[in-house]
């Protein structure tokens, strides 16, 4: 019927030491790598369950940025005609930013609620806790991959030919994933300690969207005289990692000049977010099972 257990697998013979919490600890990438299958299955579960439970299933991944594109196009291009460039058309312009933005927003919102939502797992079994928010980011990646073709099929219609900048896309996207993972992880940990974050997160996502040049052009102040009072605010925008990342993502895709200055700032900020988020998470993860 069943065979007796055979000698065990990879970690055989290794010694695990359990000690009181040590305070700040490093991110244990080796352990995360060891649990990569868990990461994969958790992300896969999120995607699968979401699409099984909804009527339109996987179509939501396309509909969400697609509908936003339609709405913003109506507002900014058709009704108010704020957007006056010939090429690319506004809907391509806005969708090329909405895709990375939607990824980011979905990732941080889901990751932010992921640990609280995995209460059963966390109180019953050990695994590297970072796998939970990371898996949520992974699930958002799947949505992104599903929605991306919507943008790409528009390119031939409008004669848009991506240039060399496309080669930069993977790097930009990787940094985007890192910043989403960092912010999501931070929110996930805060959410365990303070359930208020359940309500803060949607608000934060909305606010963040307006702080990111997704839907509007990088508006240059038309009159140098008016620069004086609030121009410093614009200097701060790249501190929002999404500013430079979304701008450069769009620029790289649509063959425009890469805003290197903003990209550099934003990438640095993204890394800061990633490490701060992960370190904070690691600092408090030992208490999850006790307070959740």
């Amino acid at each position, binding site marked *: 019927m069943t065979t007796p*257990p055979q000698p065990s697998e990879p970690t055989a013979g290794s010694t695990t030491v359990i000690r009181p919490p040590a305070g700040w600890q490093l991110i244990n990438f080796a352990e995360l790598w060891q649990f990569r299958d868990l990461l994969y299955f958790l992300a896969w579960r999120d995607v699968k369950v979401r699409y099984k439970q909804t009527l339109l299933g996987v179509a939501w991944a396309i509909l969400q940025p697609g509908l936003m594109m339609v709405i913003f196009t109506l507002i900014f291009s058709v009704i108010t005609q704020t957007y006056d460039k010939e090429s690319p058309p506004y809907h391509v312009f806005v969708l090329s930013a909405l895709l990375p933005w939607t990824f980011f927003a979905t990732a941080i919102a889901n990751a932010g609620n992921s640990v609280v939502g995995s209460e059963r797992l*966390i109180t019953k079994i050990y695994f590297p806790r970072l796998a939970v928010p990371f898996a949520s980011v992974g699930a958002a990646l799947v949505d992104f991959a599903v929605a991306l073709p919507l943008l790409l099929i528009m390119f031939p219609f409008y004669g848009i030919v991506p240039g060399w900048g496309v080669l930069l896309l993977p790097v930009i996207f990787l940094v985007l994933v890192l910043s989403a993972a960092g912010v999501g992880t931070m929110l996930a940990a805060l959410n365990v300690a303070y359930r208020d974050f359940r309500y803060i997160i949607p608000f934060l996502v909305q606010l963040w969207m307006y702080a990111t040049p997704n839907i509007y052009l990088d508006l240059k102040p038309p009159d140098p005289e008016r620069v004086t009072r609030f121009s410093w605010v614009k200097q701060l925008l790249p501190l929002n990692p999404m500013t430079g990342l979304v701008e450069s993502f769009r620029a790289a895709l649509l063959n425009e000049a890469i805003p290197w200055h903003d990209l550099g700032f934003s990438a640095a900020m993204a890394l800061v977010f990633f490490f701060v988020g992960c370190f904070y998470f690691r600092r408090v993860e030992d208490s999850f099972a006790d307070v959740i």
Partner: protein
Amino acid sequence: MTVLTIQNLAKCYRVQATGKTKSAYGYRTLRDDLTDWVKTPLRWFGNAAAASVQDFWALRDVSFDVKRGEVLGVIGHNGAGKSTLLKILSRITKPTLGEVRLKGRVGSLLEVGTGFHPELTGRENIFLNGAILGMRRHEIQRKFDQIVDFAEIEPFLDTPVKRYSSGMYVRLAFAVAAHLEPEILIVDEVLAVGDLSFQRKCMGRMREVGRSGSTILFVSHNMPAIEALCTRALLLDHGKVAMDGGVHELVQEYHRRVLATHGDGGSTLSDLNSPTRVHKIFRSVTMLDEKAEPTNFLPVGGRFHLRLVLDAPIAVEAPNVTIGIDDSLGQRLLSLQTPLTNSVLPRLQQSGVLECVVESLPLAPGDYWVKLGLAAVPDEIDEIERALRFTVTEGELFGSGRGHHRGLCVTPSQWSFQAM
């Protein structure tokens, strides 16, 4: 070879005293912390714990070693620290003091079906649950057929588990866990689920795991299971190791201590408060032996005699009294009710003694709880879960000279045989 070393392990929980402004739930809200910070800025720098916080030591100074191949049963009454110990060993929570060293791969099973998702199919859940338990994908693939065989769910492999019966669900969950093949297996009360034949299969599997050289730590309230499986036992009491040694001896000691906390065959109930006690009718409950002496032990198939002392703070018209007998997992095995046997009580307006006798209690050896209920149409007036604990002991069943039997119930039976 020692595979598990535990030194001076302790775990302290911060318990928030009631009646304070702190959130009544385990977690804090932002508002709580913000007001705290404003009120006591010094706490920002880590001094002075809030006065409303009390320390509760769930474990204290626990030290012991476990050798390779040992099957250690951890026993103790509720709140003795068993679960906390397992949680620390499974790395779910960290100790406050002390150190644990574990050699080899640890598999912990504090619950069957952790991470099962109702929307996913049996097949999908095998992979998900396996990964959660720490198995690699190829490992699950390799053992997939064995797991399905063990769980006996092959026709339903592609049905979402939300459509499974609870028995199928548990079988599948245990099957995945049973194929984890760890070097150290940590098991909580999980074997207690599922039907009897499956329980036996699980026990068999655990024995197999034990024989193959794996080390097992097993927590249970089910003393027969502890005695059947374990090679050594550890008795915890109030967070400390009370005794460490032979299984039989410790199980005896465990029974003795349970008895000590639950009185000599009786429980005084008048001081017991619970929301289900609208009026405190039940004053005490006592189990009596053949000589009408209080006892907590009943030989299998023996005479069950319960004496209830009732008070009548209010007059109760034609009350119905229910005596429920639950096993240690809370499953109702017997329900003895006055109306069902036509023993209708008169109007209750003064104190009195109510006796209930079952000539031959048809329950297998094990630990049981008595639940008491008193109702008068239409209201529940007094209800006490776990009013009294008693043990049915192994014994000569129905004078046959044989004590060995299986199942939840025992009953005399007549057999006849005619050669043809």
